[in-house]
């Protein structure tokens, strides 16, 4: 790493190859999914690259490297946990709305259309693409130019709104 800090590309390349193998086996022991392991390995490599000036050659290299890898792993796990919670909340919202509509199947389509009409145009568009056209979040993000998380947040807000509309209509009846 000392040579890499001085700009030696060959030394840096062999170091990164070695680090990749160590970090991969470190992450594999904690994460089963191969794609996710590679994501964390790559995030760690990037963090090592960005923080290489903080390595002190007087200290051992491994604690420095493992500290970065451990934090990238924790960050990744936390992000995944938040995302999963968000997606589950969204799904529950949609299922509650669909279930309520399905009770009266004769007029359900009309009712759903009326309920969708009460949403903002962006929420309506995204929910229609997600749930009626069956498209993925990634596809919608590409098409609308929004980020994937924005698509999920917009859909989630739409579900909440739909649920309110349905509960209100049940109360009215």
């Amino acid at each position, binding site marked *: 790493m000392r040579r*890499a*800090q*001085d*700009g030696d*590309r060959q030394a*840096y*390349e062999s170091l*990164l*190859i070695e680090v*990749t193998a160590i970090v*991969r086996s470190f992450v594999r022991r904690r994460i089963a999914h191969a*794609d996710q392991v*590679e994501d964390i*390995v*790559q995030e760690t*490599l*990037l*963090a090592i*690259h*960005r*923080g*290489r*000036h*903080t*390595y*002190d*050659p*007087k*200290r051992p290299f491994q*604690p*420095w*490297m*493992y*500290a*970065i890898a451990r*934090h990238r792993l924790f960050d990744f796990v936390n992000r995944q946990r938040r995302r999963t919670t968000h997606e589950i909340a969204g799904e529950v919202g949609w299922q509650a709305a669909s279930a309520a509509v399905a009770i009266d199947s004769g007029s359900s389509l009309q009712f759903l259309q009326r309920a969708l009409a009460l949403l903002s145009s962006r929420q309506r568009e995204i929910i229609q693409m997600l749930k009626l056209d069956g498209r993925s979040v990634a596809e919608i993000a590409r098409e609308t130019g929004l980020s994937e998380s924005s698509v999920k947040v917009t859909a989630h807000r739409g579900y909440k709104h739909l649920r309110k509309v349905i509960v209100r209509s049940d109360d009215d009846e």
Partner: protein
Amino acid sequence: MTTSNALIQSLVEDLKPVRRLASVDLRTVLWAGFAVACVCFGTYALGVRSDLALKLHDPSYLVEGAALLMSFALATRSAFQLSVPGVERGRLSRMLPLAMLLGWALLIAIRGARGMNEASFTPVSSGSSCAFRMTFLAFAPTLWLLFMLGQAAPLRPGWTGLFALVSASALGMLGTQALCVKDAAMHLLYWHVGPVLIAGLVGLCLGELFLSRSQAHSRGP
């Protein structure tokens, strides 16, 4: 998706020599020296309390000051340690500066409780000038500290920001203690301890906002 090998190639191509970050000890001493000089100068410029010489013989004033000084020292150390991967200590040592801060507040509260009949718990109002003085004294050290921490690679930006602001504000408050003539416990708890705690919370947010972004930039030679 970029494969790890392709990423390695692009990182190697991007490699430029970097200036190594100075050691944690050196950076801590450098900043602390600058901060103490700033606060001493600021305190002198604002005019110290007229009975300071007398207060320097008051044990409770000295003990409370020492607790605040320790909070400053421990928070400074923690902020710099957290900004460099592999140097940070365990969770327990991370709690030390906060425990010391709590100790300082307890010392004030105990002194106040002992003198319940005196005016120790009365004058809560009109103490905002202490918060302003602290902010004034700690302003330049805070900016430089955040800059120095941003030059490193804090893995816990929130905690790093929290300790940075606790450190700078504790020192600023130490200067304020030499300016403020109000010794009532309630005044100290509201207008001396309170602002330091609020500064810590502000630091937590600033750290999450700015120190995490600063990690994206490495330095040239």
